[in-house]
Every structure is written in C-alpha cells, then in structure tokens.
C-alpha cells in the first residue's frame, strides 16, 4: 500500500547504534557495502545475532540480507518486550555488546523486558556485565527510569573462547517518557569499588590483581574495596579466564568504570595469529595495575561518565522530552562522536558542544526529541 522509504547508509560501522535508533525512531534503513572488501565479507555472526535478538523482542520487523551479507534491509517493528525470553549471543562478541542497545530498547517496549542472554560475560573488548551492573544501571535511574525491575543477574560466567555464561536482564518500561537532566557536577571521587572474577583458574589470580590495583589507589584514596567472585563448576562456563572491573563513585553520584579480562583468544583470531606465538597472556599483577591506571585516566579526564558510557548518555539525552538536557563529559570518544552523528540523522537532535579549556571537559546541551513510549498499551 504505502511504499516505505529507506534511509540509505553505508558501511558496517556502528551497526548496533543504527539498528537501535532505527527501531526507536521507526525509520526503515538500508545499509550497503558492509565489509565488501574483506576476506570474509558481510555481516559478522554477532551482528546477525543482534538482528535475531531484535526480531525476538519486536513484532513484525523485517530483516533482509543479501546473499553475501553486504547489504542489509531493516524495517523496524513494534517493540514488544516480554518475560522469559532467551537469546544465545554467540561467541564472537560478549554479552556487553548486546546489553548496551537492549537496555534502551527495553525502556520503550510494550511490556517489561526480562531476557536471558547466553554467551561470553567478560571480555576485554566490550564492557563486562559487572561494569554494566555497577555503572550503566545507576545511570539510567537518573533519567527517571523506575528502579524496581531494573536489574542484571549474573547466573554464571563465561570467558572466551567457549563462553557458557548466562545473565538475566530485566528492564522496566517507561510509562510515558524519560525526564531531561542537568548533569554537570562531576564531584570528587569518594570511593572505589570493584569486582574481580575468575573462571576455571585459581582464585589466587584475583587476589593478585586486587593487590596490584590497590597498590596504585592507596596513595589517593583509602576507601577501596574490591570483591572477588570466583566461580567454579557449572557456573564457571567453559573456558578459563580472569578479569577485573572497577568503578569509582563520586560525591555527586557519578560512576566511572574501567574493566578488562584476560583469557585465551578466540578460535578465529588464533587462526590468523597462528604463525606468531600463542599470544602471551598477561600476568594478573599487570592486569591489576593496568586497569587501575585506566580508571585513573578516566577520572583525570573528568565528566560525569566514563568514555565507554558517553554514547549511551547522549542517546538518553536525545530521547528525553523537549527540554534542555545538559551534561558534562571528558574527551569525546570516537564512539560518542559517531553516536552524536547518528542521533542527528535519526532523531534530528543536535547537541551544542562547548569545550571547557580549563578543565578539559566538554559540555553538551540538547533539546530532546520528545520520544514517547508509543508501543505502550492504554488500558
């Protein structure tokens, strides 16, 4: 009846972001030239998996992929949400890759979302589930998301390459819309918390990491508590690995996080690196020190969120009602910049970006797009 007009995009970059915004704004998209020149052209397994996830939580969305996978047509459906959903995230990316868009989608669903995600919980590439729990969820509460029903439960952990972790994410839906925020006070760091984990390795690794990290923080702050989470048996997944996630809380209630994980590389990667050495794994002391340094780097940059969460922060600001939101971040991360561009394209929201030379931070202001939870049912 009515021809849908597709927004034409190119390249595989930011596919998550594009699909997420397309679903929220109800714009159909057509992405061409997805890795056309690679040895393995087309969509990667995790991207396919994400598309499946979208199909799972929406109603009547249309996904068309050409034979080589270099062209994707996506027509969004109505976000449904629902309970007791299960999704296997695959092993090419960790669960953190899926959690980031999913938590936003869950807010605008017809029913509250509760979904079990299977795969890799901790990974050095994506934010770990611990970070997500300690930093991302409190951030959502600032935007007026009800705190009951907002939860991430880690059932079991899984490290690459074999995975085997399980988390249950539950996100409440919002009744009408988010609320705009003014969030420029970064405050001072008052405590540092963290979690280390280890699967199928000795729990001594964790203590070593904690010791190393504390060694760096001790000169700055006494209030440092890092918990250990040693999993064994079925809860430990299928591969050995260990890692750490740290979060710094400030006096004004901002959370800054840093995390990493150490594990054997994935099968495909090892194929490439076969002739080289079997990639030396890092020692736990180095990991501890490194991640503490990363966290201090984040703190040094300033801003109310760390660089990982910039994109999410901008997105939430853009989804607010038509009021002014004002946030302060440190250096703009490439991901944040791409997010800003995509927000402009999909939602028509532009940010005013003013740097502050004295503190090295950037203040962003925008008027929200006024997106409401359209799929909600009126009783």
């Amino acid at each position, binding site marked *: *009846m009515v021809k849908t007009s597709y927004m034409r995009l190119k390249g595989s970059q930011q596919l*998550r972001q594009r699909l997420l915004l397309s679903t929220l704004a109800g714009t159909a998209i057509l992405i061409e030239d997805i890795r056309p020149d690679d040895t393995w052209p087309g969509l990667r397994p995790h991207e396919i998996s994400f598309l499946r996830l979208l199909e799972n939580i929406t109603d009547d969305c249309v996904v068309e992929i050409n034979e080589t996978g270099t062209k994707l047509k996506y027509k969004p459906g109505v976000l449904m949400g629902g309970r007791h959903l299960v999704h296997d995230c695959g092993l090419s990316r960790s669960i953190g890759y899926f959690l980031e868009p999913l938590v936003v989608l869950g807010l605008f669903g017809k029913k509250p979302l509760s979904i079990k995600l299977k795969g890799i919980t901790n990974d050095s590439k994506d*934010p770990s589930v611990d970070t997500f729990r300690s930093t991302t969820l409190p951030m959502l509460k600032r935007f007026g998301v009800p705190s009951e029903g907002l939860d991430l439960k880690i059932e079991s952990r899984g490290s690459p390459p074999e995975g085997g972790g399980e988390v249950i994410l539950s996100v409440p839906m919002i009744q009408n819309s988010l609320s705009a925020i003014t969030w420029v006070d970064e405050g*001072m760091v008052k405590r540092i918390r963290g979690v280390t984990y280890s699967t199928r390795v000795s729990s001594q690794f964790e203590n070593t990491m904690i010791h190393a990290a504390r060694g760096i923080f001790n000169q700055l702050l006494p209030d440092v508590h890092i918990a250990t989470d040693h999993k064994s048996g079925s809860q430990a997944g299928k591969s050995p690995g260990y890692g750490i996630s740290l979060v710094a809380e400030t006096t004004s209630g901002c959370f800054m996080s840093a995390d990493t994980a150490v594990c054997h590389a994935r099968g495909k990667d090892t194929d490439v690196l076969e002739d080289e050495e079997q990639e030396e794994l890092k020692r736990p002391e180095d990991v501890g020190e490194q991640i503490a340094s*990363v966290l201090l780097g984040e703190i040094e940059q300033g801003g109310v969120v760390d660089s990982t969460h910039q994109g999410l922060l901008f997105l939430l600001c853009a989804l607010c009602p*038509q009021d002014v939101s004002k946030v302060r971040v440190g250096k703009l991360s490439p991901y944040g910049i791409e997010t800003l561009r995509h927000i402009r394209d999909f939602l028509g929201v532009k940010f005013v970006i003013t740097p502050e030379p004295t503190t090295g931070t950037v203040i962003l*202001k925008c008027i929200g797009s006024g997106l409401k939870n*359209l799929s909600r049912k009126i009783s």
Partner: protein
Amino acid sequence: MAVVSGNQDQLHKAHRSRQAGPSAKRKKKSDKKKGDVLEEKKHNPKAFAFNSTVKAKRLQARATEKEQRKLHIPIVDRSTGEPAPFVVVVHGPPKVGKSLVIKSLVKHYTKQNLPEVRGPITIVSGKQRRLQFVECPDDINGMIDAAKIADLALLLVDGSYGFEMETFEFLNILQVHGFPKIMGVLTHLDKFKDVKKLKKTKQRLKHRFWTEIYDGAKLFYLSGLIHGKYPKREIHNLARFISVMKFRPLSWRTSHPYVLVDRFEDVTPPEKLQMNRKCDRNVTLYGYLRGCNMKQGTKVHIAGVGDCNLAGVTVLPDPCPLPSAAKKKGLRDKDKLFYAPMSGLGDLLYDKDAVYININDHLVQFSKVDDEIAGTSRKGKDRDVGEVLVKSLQNMKYSVDEKLENSFITLFGRKPPVSAEDKGDAKASYSEDCVEDMVHMDGPFASEKAESGEDGTIDTDSISESSEQDKSGEKHVVAENEDNDSDEEDDDEWEGDGDKEQQPTPNCDFEEKIEFHNGRLRRKAVSAHDVHDGDLKDSDEDEEDDMDSKSSASSDFAVEDEEDHQTEEEAGNASKWRESLKERTAMRQSTNLMQLVYGKSTLESVTSIHEEQASSEDEESEDDDFFRPKGEANKKSEELDSYDANGEDCSKFTNHGKLKNWKNEEIIESIRDRFVTGDWSKAARRGQASDDDSEDDDDDVSGDFEDLETGEKNESHQTNNVGSRSQNNDDQANEERRLKKLALRAKFDAQYEVSEPPDEEADEKSGSKLHGSEANDGGYFDKLKEEAELRKQINIAELNDLDEAARLEIEGFRTGTYLRLEVHNVPFEMVEHFDPCHPILVGGIGLGEENVGYMQVRLKRHRWHRKVLKTRDPIIVSIGWRRFQTVPVYAIEDRNGRHRMLKYTPEHMHCLAMFWGPLAPPNTGVVAVQNVSNNQASFRITATAVVLEFNHATRIAKKIKLVGNPCKIFKKTALIRDMFTSDLEVARFEGAAIRTVSGIRGQVKKAAKEEIGNKPKKKGGQPREGIARCTFEDRILMSDIVFLRAWTQVEVPRFFNPLTNALQSRDQVWSGMKTVAELRKEQNLPVPVNKDSLYKPIERKQRKFNPLVIPKSLQAALPFASKPKDRSSRKRPLLESRRAVVMEPHERKVHALVQHLQLIRNEKMKKRKLKEDEKRKAHEAEKAKNEELSRKRQREERRGRYREEEKQKKRRAGRNAEI
C-alpha cells in the same frame, strides 16, 4: 470603541449623590432596610453554624472534591516569545450569520470594513494578544480541519430555529480532537416578536447547550441587526469575552507543530507551466507556527492533500506584529493592524525573495486575459501611452531573467556576469529590482529607506557597511565589531534570519549615533548576497511603521538605485577581507568542536532539507566519492571522522599504549584534587573557574541577543539580571536555588497576571478563588507545578545562552514565528481547486507517525447514528492531522483476553476496532464518519474512539465449528469424514477435542489409514482424503453429528485511502470505497441468502422405538417377576365397559326423590335472590338522595367561608395600605 482605544487615565468628575429631597430619603430608607437584614443575620449566628459533624464533614469532602476536579496535571510550557495569534473558529449552519460576526468583530477591532471573509484574518486585538478569525466551512471535512486548529470556537446558532445538527456534529468533533474553549452565540433573535417567547427560547437553548458542554457554559445573545450589522454594543461585549479568554494547552497540539495557512502561492516556474499545465506544482504556504517548535527536516501532513517533505522553511517577519512594549494603556490606532491576504487585504506582501503588490481585479485593465475577453468591448477607445507600454511589455517573449542570462551584460565594472555566479540569490534580487524599476511600484520601498534613515533606526548591518566606505574609520569599526561582524556574516549566508539584525547591539548603538551625526545616511548599500537581508530588514521596518505610509512614493529612487549598485560593488570588494577575518574569528571560536562533530556545512543544510540529507553529511560525501580511487575516499573520510566506514563497533575506547605511569608522584598529584582526600576548596575552584569561563564564553557569543531580550521581555530581563548576579557566586547549589526562585516568581507572575485585567471582574474573582484553593491544598500539586515551572526556567536559561543560529539548529523554528513553507511536487489539483474559504492545515508529523500499521481503538458508535456498524464496512476516520478511509474489524475482549470478532458493533457499548492506517500515538482521539456528503439529514458522526495501541499483528479471532459425520464406527473409535478436507489438515488438528450433539466427548487421533475401513468406493481409486480417526468416551451412533469447535484468526484488511478532498472541486463529494450495501443497491443485487441459515418450523417425528429384545439365555436366568410375560392382547373390550345398568325398584324411588328435593331447593333460592335485589335497589336510591343533600350543604358552607376570608383579606390589605 473608546474603551478599547482606551484613554482611561482621563479624570471624570466624581458622582455626588443627593443630600436632600425625596430621592435622598428613598436612599436612606433602602439603606436602613439593608442594614436591618444584616442585623437580623447577626442576631442568631448559631443558626448558620454546622449542627452536625457528619454534615460538616460531608460538606467539606464535597468542597475538596470539587476543588480537586478542577486540577490538571501541570505541563511544562515550552513556548517562548510571543504566542501565535489565537485561532477563533466561527462555526454554524449555513445562513446563520458567520461571516457577519467576523466582519463585525473585525470592524470593531480595526475599524475597517471587510468586504468578504475568505481565509484566516489576523488582527491585533490587544497589547499582548492577536486573534485569527477563521470561518468554518459547511462540509464535514472542513469542520474536522477547523476543529483541529481552533483555540476558541464560536458556535453560531439560529435562535429562531434552534440547534441544528451541524452544531452538535462540530461539538463532537471538537470533543474528540481535544476540547478547546467554546462559546455559543445565538443570532436571529429579532425574529421573535413576543418577549416572553424569546425569553423562554433563550432559556431552553441555554440549558440544552449546557447539557452538551458543561453547566454554565457561556451562551451569547446577539439580538438582531442594525443597518445590516450586529449592534455595536453587543459586538463590543463579545469582543471582551474573547479578549479575556484563557486558552488551554491541548496535548496533541502541544506536541505537534502546525501551521494554519493564511496565504498560499503557486511558485512553479512558469516555463514548466507552459509546457504542461498539469505538471506537479511547487507551492509556498505561509502561516504562524503553532503547537511546538518545528525542527528542520520535519515531514508535514497537509490536510486533504497528503504527506509532504518540506523543500524549504523560511522565517518571515511577522506581517501583523504586536505593538511595541512601550508603556501605555490600550492600543493606538496605528497598532490595530490586520492581515488577511486571502481576503485581498493588505496591499503589500513580503516574501523571502520578492514583494507582491496586490491590485484589485477591477482595477487591473492591462492583463492579457482581460484583453482577450473584453477586447471587443474596448475596441473603440484609444489606448493611452502607458497602456501601450504595458501591453508591449506583456508581449515580450522572454522573461527578464532569461534576457539577462542571454545578454551577458556586465552591469558593473569589475564584476563577472551576474547570471553565472550567484544564481541562487543575486539573480532573483537583481531581476526583481529591474522589474520594480520598470513597473514603478517601488515607491514605498524608497520612502521606507529614507524614513528609516531619518528615524535613526539603522540596523547594524548598514552601519558596518557604511563604515566600510568611510575609509578612515574602517579599521576602528572592525576592531570593535569583530564578533558582530562575523555573526552577521553567518546570518547573511543563512537567509531569512530577520530577527537578529532588527535590533541593534548595545555597543553599536553608540556607533549608530555618530554615524547619524555625520549624516551618512545614504548607505543602504547591500552586497551581492546581502540583498535578501536588505529586503527583509526593510520589510521589518515596514511593519513597524504605519501601513499607511506605504502609499507615498518618492521620485528620486533612480538615483538611489545607482548609488546602490556602486556601493554594492565596493561591498563586494570589502567582503573578501571580511571573509578572511571571519575565518580567523571562526578559528578562534571554541564552537568549532561542533563543526568537528557534525561536519562543516551545517549552515547550508538549514534552509533546504531533503530526505536524502537526512543521512549524514560525511556519508553524502562518500556518495560522491563512490567512484573515486579507494585510498582517496578513505583519506577524505578520515579527515572528517578518523573512522572508516567498516570500523569496529565497540563502545569501549581503550588506549592502553598511552597509559601514564600512575606510580609517579607528580602524575598522582595532578589528580589529587579529584578525590575526596584532596583539597576540597581547590576542587570547588576548579568547577568555579569552569563555570566562569563558560559564562564568559556564552556572553561572547550571545551577549547582544540577551540584550535584545531585555528590551522586549520582562521575564528574560530577570534571567539576565540574575544571571549577571550569579557570576559572583557561581556555585551549583546557588544556581539551582536561583532557578527555583525564578520559577516561583514566574508562577507568582502568572497568577498575578490572571487577576490583573481590570475590565473583567468576574474572571478576577474566579481566578483568585482558584488560587486560594491551590494555596490551601499545597502538597503534591504544588510540587508538580513548581517542578514544571523550574523546568521551564532551566530551558529558558539554557537556551538564552546560545546564539540565534545554534539555537535554531537545536531548537528548531519557534512557535509564534511567521513561516514560509515551500513544498515541491504537489498535485496540480491543489492549486486548481484551491479555495480560500477552506482552511489549509499543515501539521507536523512526529516520530514514527508516518509509518503504517494496525491500530487498535476503543470505539463507540454514536448514539445518534441510526444504524450499528458492520465489520468490514469502510469508514472515514480522522486521527491526528489525518483523515483517511479504512476498513475496520470490530471485536470485543473476552474474559480470557481473547479478542473475539463482532459482526456488528454493540448497540450501546464500547467495542474494539482494528484497522490499518498511518499510526497515531496511543490516547489520540478518533472521530469516524461514514459519508462526507452534505445532503444527509441524519447525524453524520458515526462513532468516536480513542487509540489504545498499535501493533503490527492483529489477534482477532472468530469462532469456527467444523462439522463431520461418522462413516464407520468401531467400539469407541469412529472414522469421521467431512470434517477435514485433507490429511494434512487432520494432522494439524491432532489431539483437538471434539463432541457429538448428544454430548459424547472425544479427540482427534490421526488421519485414517486405508486398511481400517477407509476404502475407496471403487477398487483401484485413491483412498479418500481427510478422514480422521477419532476416539470417544462412549460408542457413538451413525446418526450422531460430530463437532470440532475452534478459533480462527481474522485478517484485518490492509487498506487505507487518504481523503484527498483538497485535490478536487470543493462542491464535489469525495467518494472512496463503497460499502457492500451501497454496491448492492447500485447494482440492484439481492442480499444473498443461505438457505441453511433460515429458520424453519421444527418438525420432530415421533420416535419409534423397537421392542426390547431380551436374549433367551438371559430370560431363562431372570426371576419370574422380571421375566417378560407373553400375554396376548384382548380382542374385545372388558366387561365393565360393555355392560348396561338396570336399577332396582327401591333404587329408582330413591333416585326420583332426590331429584324432587333438589328442584324444590332451587326454586326457593331463586325467589330469595329476587327479593334481595329489590331491597338493594331501594337502599341505593336512598343513599344517592342523601349524598346529594350533603354535597349541597357542604358547598354552601365553603362558599360562606371563602366569602369571609376574602373580606378579611381586603380589610387587611386596606389596613396595610393605610400604614
């Protein structure tokens, strides 16, 4: 009239009441009486106190409940600046006096006679208020559109006739699309000769009106006509009611931008038109932006046409601005502007790139059309010189543009040919200039320029340019106005921004004066790309000046024009170094981070946005670079975003290589203050410094803007003041406190404003009462209100920091601005059948509203609609801005949550309706009509509904009953045929529950195999398909019918048809899909009848049972009593029925005696009865006589008593009179 123009400061002599004489006496007496009443009340104060606590409690509860019912959830008011004119829709049935009301009101406000009412008419009605009158067309489409834009609806009702259907239809439409303010107006009241009857009618109509809206709704009476107009006094009162009206924000409208088009132009290139008259047209639509801010790139829906992309949006100067904010009471005559381009009023119209001069049709004698038509009549007359000149101009083959393009005249010494370069801007303006020159109609322009010079209101632009000419003062100015210059440059490029330059900056004010003293006033020079702005500015000033002055023409324009050109050329030179300067300032400006993120050409994309541009800028560039060598393209993209198109999608950005060594003491010290263990005061200072800095920055960018605001508005003045104060104590907490304070103040202001208008006491009272109650109730509501107000203040404060361009980018076009919307490729019918009497509504489409899908609405048939609605009969619905025809399926929700299809809507209940169409957000009102034709006697609103949710899949089910017969019965298993058509179908239903009529339950097992009974009729044929093997709880009979009851999905037709009634002649009725009934009627087809569905008299044959057969072996085993006995049936009847009775002689005697005795007794009884009858009759006669007598006596008595009473009364009255 005097009241409005208002010299109320004039002192009147105070009234001096009489001190002596009869009137003074009377006064005293009445005073005394009043005093008595008061004293009497005081005598017994307890009598008016509460006696019972229960009653008191109940009363209080009732009062609070009433109070609570008045409260609305406070919403954040996001509108800033002047509000758009309020739309007053005048509605009524035909011939009720709609246009006369508008004419009278316009006359009252502006003292102008309006010849005819076509299109919206904007007037300035007060210092803070403008109104836009719209006459509602008669057809239902027009009514729906008008209801969507009305802020106030005046419902005109013919008092001599009573209410008509149109009024109620309109009310229903209004109710669905948000309920704006409504006022009834009764006209034709002079038809009543009898005063009593008039009064009664008024009363009756008023109460009917109240039941429809609310008790106490205002109904206004216009008593009659005087000289063909309504009486002045009554119109004055009506205007007063309108002027104090408070309008409520309606949720749909506050979340969608919309424009009521008050001017409409076809801007298709004439060449294209000549080629093909029916080509798609480009049109421009003008109107005030209402609702909410309109972002760039918003898609719009033009009611009656369809969805369109805006090819361009331009802000035009307000054609009907509010009077300046100078302190004075009332409106001056020159402020009483009005603007009605569709009605042919207002001689000059300003556009983005042109000025139109309106000449009435009867004054035009030179047009070609006229010549052709009336050529014969004018043959005899000689044409004068001017006429011939114009004729020759008309006969030219090529337009001026084309000539210019072809001729390559170098107009000015050093400039390259005009046509080549500045096609976009310069050409149009130059040609326009030339045309103006030829037609000699630019008098007002020149005079404007001269005037503005004399007034000293020169805009900054002209000053800076004039200073450029002044070689000596050049650098000085540049040094001072660096920032301004660059700003202006920006604005110049970005056409259509008239607002900013309108107001001089404060530091320019000084400059301005100097220039004025030096007498350099001829510098209206406009550089090549400044021409537009020049126009705009002129028009601005035009609007500010009196309209009348436009008629004066000046003769020395030609000279000025010359000078213009010269200066232009110089300005062109000057602009080069200015450009470099601009670049330098831009480099210095810190906002280039935004350019880094969003790409450079943000300014270009402002005016014209296509859908293609929705994709990001960098991608566009990639598009262009598609066929270039790969490396090159990559390089370019890397310039922009250091990210290649196939980059890794990862939110984490870790650069472990660049990690600092955090064990180093120095590095640790560098972030020591970011921890609570560090120096708190230093940390605080860090924030402070930044705040200071940011505010300084902001001031640099937009200082002039804020000043502009202070000049105009009180509110922003406050913010500014407080803002400057806050620079001293920059603390987060302080900032918050400040905003809160502001919010409170604003709230107080808002309240105060309500009670301020001195001319409306009733409103004041109600207002104060309301506030009193609010103050009492405090608590939650107040908190909500404060929050909303705080939000508003934050918004205002944050937005004030930005400069105009950035603001437009992030905020969009503001409400209340006058916009010019350019739409390309609309069907030519829109222009062809354009009718100014039908308002054109342009509504913005929100996120996700352009998608189509299934909508579920809760629908109720209107109780005045005659018939119930049938599923799958097309209806026309109006949702949001749209109207479309669609095919609904009705359903109802069962207890278990299943949506069961209904064939017809319930009689008096809500039901669900599912249909396909463009989506509207939940909670949107829907009004449905079945037929849009005008000549229907019945009520046209079919149903009203509200959107519940939308869905891409529908889950409506209907009941289905599969019927089968047993074809073979084993013990408890049977093969059922006719129920399914194929084995596949059987497989689908395996395990389904079935039942026989007699109630034996069973289950479908599997498709029957061949070997067990399912044998084909003929040997060698295929076994029959669709025979199911079923098991039952008992053995069934061959005569049993087997049912399978199930639910099946119902498809909702994917059909919708936009109502494009603006694309056809207005007197033609839009017709879409027809209902089945209509089709049958048209084609003369009978209603199909299923014979099986007809009711027939039930004939039940007497069931004949075979005799019970008991096996012999069983019989042998039975005891004798239970054994069936073999008895042959009798041939003859029994003896007792056959025999005759013969009595004995004694018996006979007894019998005779008894008979005799009975006879005697009967006779006796008869006699007694006769006697009793006689007696009763006599008694009744006696009784009647007595009664007559007593009645007579009583009457006499009563008469006497009344006589006495009358006498006494008279006596008393007389005595009273004496007293």
